[in-house]
């Protein structure tokens, strides 16, 4: 057994204190916005210049100027604010964002993260990822435990170009919750039925 995507999302939500500010990376982390229970007050920031993202707009309330960093249309909640990119990254780089939750390709035992580039593959750019991992109070990486080639993504040393050095606090995969400790990864929790051997930790 392992955790489904929804179970991973719910696990993360349960770890985040009420009232926190959170930035969600493109991909799996954006699912978090859709599963926050109504009694949990989180302020979701999107680095293109909004704090207080809610969810999706109703069809007749779509605005081309109201988008998230994934360039998707969004709705906002009461108490939201808009700002320019420098102030937005001031929130991020200045240490004001409580949680940054990003996708990952590799995390290693020294808290390094690689998630922005595979040499020889499509060029996309790092966007705000390098700022987010260096500036947020807590960095959580959310990813599948194994790559498509069945390689564990929790590594002794990242082989792909880094996004940040010594930045990752916590990793959630479909197999469990892990914390890099310098030599390997501490197991915080395993998904039901998952064994330590299955995780192939370095």
């Amino acid at each position: 057994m392992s955790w489904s995507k929804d179970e991973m999302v719910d696990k993360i939500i349960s770890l985040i204190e009420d009232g926190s500010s959170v930035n969600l990376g493109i991909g799996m982390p954006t699912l978090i916005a859709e599963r926050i229970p109504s009694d949990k007050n989180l302020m979701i920031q999107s680095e293109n210049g909004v704090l207080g993202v809610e969810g999706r707009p109703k069809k007749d309330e779509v605005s081309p100027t109201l988008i998230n960093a994934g360039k998707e249309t969004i709705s906002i909640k009461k108490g939201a604010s808009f700002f320019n990119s420098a102030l937005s990254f001031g929130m991020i780089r200045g240490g004001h964002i409580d949680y940054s939750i990003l996708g990952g390709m590799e995390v290693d035992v020294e808290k390094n993260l690689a998630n922005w580039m595979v040499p020889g593959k499509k060029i996309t750019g790092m966007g705000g990822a390098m700022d987010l991992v260096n500036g947020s109070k807590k960095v959580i990486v959310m990813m599948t435990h194994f790559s498509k080639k069945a390689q564990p993504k929790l590594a002794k040393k990242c082989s792909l170009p880094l996004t940040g050095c010594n930045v990752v606090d916590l990793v959630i995969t479909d197999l469990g919750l892990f914390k890099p400790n310098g030599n390997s990864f501490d197991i915080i929790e395993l998904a039901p039925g998952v064994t330590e051997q299955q995780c192939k930790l370095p």
Partner: protein
Amino acid sequence: MEKMNAVDDPFKKIFSNAKAALIGLKSNMTIMSGGFGLCGIPENSINALTEMDINNLTVISNNIGNSGRGLVKILVQKKIKKAFCSYVGGNPDLEKQILNNEIEVELVPQGTFAERIRAAGMGIRGFYTPTGYGTVVADKKEVKVFDRPCLLELPLHADFAIIKAQKADRYGNLWFKETARNFSPLMAMAAKVTVAEVEELVELGDIAPEDVHVPGIFVQRIYQGCDYQNDIEFLLTEENQ
């Protein structure tokens, strides 16, 4: 130059259209262009650039357009020699030019990108940031250790900034809707000449002083734009996730 008369144009900043407002923009210049993806891009100014006989531009813009839209229009005309940007996903034309060595691209972390533009506008000659330390971004940059190792980053200046706002008054005070402002206020401060195109040109006083997002001192030229597409890249609604 096609300009309005003094009564309508007390600060001599109003131009009749994009072409008139971009006079003086020449080959080899550095141009900043506002917008995040296609949100808030200066559509009319970009269209005017496609018709100008210019090349070897250095362009500073977060995305350099997307799938045939925005700055991709001048990219495919081979008018851009060098680009500074943070994210180029969903831009196959740019990727092709990078792989063919037809363009030089400096990928800059988005916060460093915004801060380098802001620094230019603020008169800051350089700043240290931990962003990018230990990555390819650190290549050839000075490192200084504060609480953590940091990179020295330098300002990004431009000859022209082309930006779009929802409203401007006749002094160039600007107001932006929702997330449309992104990099535009920073670029307005960082360029020698800032050209703001607007959906609505209003009278002095129509934008309340406390609602001004960019004070008019940072805007040199203004024109009323037209035919805005305001493209949505990914339309997601409650009904259609």
